[in-house]
């Protein structure tokens, strides 16, 4: 006797658009990222620096003093462009969250689960990229926005509304320039291993190593192209190009960890091309690594 009815009715309805499916991935990923204690501590550390900067701004405004690092758009360039602590913290966050993003899916056989649903490799990549980027933006863009609001509220500088709007766009762009290539590169490394800490270490090697190697080359070779070796320099140069050129210069504070204006005499499209190339190659690499999972049940 054939079984003709098992009281099961297949679902019939409209499939949600891709953006919602990707959005579901991103929501879960971000919740997971924020669940870690170390991630929370590191994020909190970025805000400590922001609060310190706001403190300087407040004191400067109270005593009607002009302090270079909190004047004009330097306040954002100082926060977003410094190696320490922002650069190091973002590096560590990317190692932590980006490094385990795909690695954990490989480890716990979750990749097949994604591709057994109506999700393509591209959706998976975009979802992961958005997850890591969103998380890193909470350590870059959100604090910078806080600085923007506080500067508007506290600073006695006369800054026009147009300039403030330009600053807002610039700091947003600067944050994206920092975060997007890092997120994609971290994903590429993450797709290499099931152990989350190996991609993390390779990312630290890339970021920190590029700074050290750039320093060695700059000292020995004394040519401008040596600065292009440093990932941090690339992002800083590209970010710098987004800001309005206003009068106040950043004063070098005597430490080679602080950003110094005009250190890379290359037009913005050179670092843009390098970072864009890294992002594109990383994306293609992830898609290539994921190809065997797509279409599996």
């Amino acid at each position, binding site marked *: 006797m054939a079984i003709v009815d098992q009281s099961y009715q297949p679902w019939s309805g409209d499939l949600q658009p891709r953006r919602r499916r990707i959005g579901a991935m991103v929501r879960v990923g971000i919740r997971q990222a924020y669940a870690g204690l170390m991630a929370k501590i590191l994020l909190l550390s970025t805000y400590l620096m922001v609060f310190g900067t706001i403190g300087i701004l407040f004191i400067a405004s109270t005593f009607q003093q002009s302090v270079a690092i909190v004047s004009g758009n330097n306040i954002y360039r100082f926060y977003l462009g410094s190696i*320490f602590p922002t650069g190091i913290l973002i590096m560590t966050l990317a190692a932590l969250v980006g490094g385990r993003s795909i690695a954990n899916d490989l480890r716990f056989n979750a990749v097949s689960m994604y591709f057994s649903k109506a999700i393509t490799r591209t959706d998976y990549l975009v979802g992961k990229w958005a997850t890591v980027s969103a998380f890193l933006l909470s350590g870059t863009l959100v604090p910078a926005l806080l600085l923007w609001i506080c500067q508007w509220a506290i600073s006695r500088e006369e800054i026009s509304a147009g300039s403030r709007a330009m600053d807002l766009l610039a700091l947003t762009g600067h944050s994206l320039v920092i975060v997007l290539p890092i997120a994609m590169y971290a994903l590429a490394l993450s797709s290499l291993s099931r152990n989350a*800490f190996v991609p993390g*270490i390779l990312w*630290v090697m890339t970021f920190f190593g590029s700074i050290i190697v750039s320093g060695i*080359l700059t000292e020995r070779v004394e040519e401008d192209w040596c600065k292009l070796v440093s990932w941090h320099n690339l992002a800083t140069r590209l970010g710098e190009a987004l800001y309005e050129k206003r009068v106040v210069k950043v004063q070098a504070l005597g*430490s080679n960890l602080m950003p110094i204006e005009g250190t890379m005499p290359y037009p913005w499209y050179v670092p843009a091309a390098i970072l864009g190339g890294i992002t594109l190659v990383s994306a293609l690499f992830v898609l290539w690594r994921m190809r065997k999972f797509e279409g599996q049940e």
Partner: protein
Amino acid sequence: MSSSAALALIEFTARRVFSGKRLWAAIVLLAIPPLVAALLVALARQRAGTPVHFDGITFNLSLYLTLVLTAMIYGVALTSSEIEDGTAGYVLLGACPRWMVALAHVLVTSPLLAALTTASIAATYGIASISPVGVPERGPSVIATDAFVASVALTVYLAFFVFCGYAFKHNMAVSIGTVLVWEFIMPALPTKFMNYTVVMNTRILWLHLTQQGERGRWFRGVVGFDVPTYAEASMFLSVAAALFLTLGMVAAMNRSLAGREGGT
């Protein structure tokens, strides 16, 4: 405890150094100093007056970036990864006492990693020597000295990672976080705390063994306080290695492996 079991433990620990993706990651790391040397040599040939300086590469890369990261890759793999993967229990339920397992992790892995590091240093030396002013006048003996210094640092790091792996529940976060902050960032900051880092003391050891203690252009960022002496650096590293080894053995003897965390 049987000698056969101890031998099996040693063999397996040694085998794990040369297996898996971590070896490739370590090779990539250890290839950085020779690659930088090669780049400088190529530029020196194109451009007269470009110094290569093996010592500079050793100071900034071999004894800093590559050393710390290589130690991190293997240090985490020794205990934290084993516990997370669920394979740690097999070793701890063997015929070797737990303290011996912890000891073997460090004392077997350390010389093997030192050998890999020596290969990296030797390759850097070989490439740098192509340039007329690339290598020190002391000759190839500097390779052995640098290798010795690196192996001391590796022992301290590995002992630390083994200790953290057995002592803490969130061992990866604790060990990696501590090393990132204390060994990566602290040596770059001009504060007295840098004197209490393994990187700094390793460099001091190197300074006295290879540079006759002459600071010259080294430690230019250190202003306003003294760097450790050779005796202080030696003592710091010895005490650190002994301390973490002992703590690691004690932690191993007291480590419980719960179900989900450890699998087995």
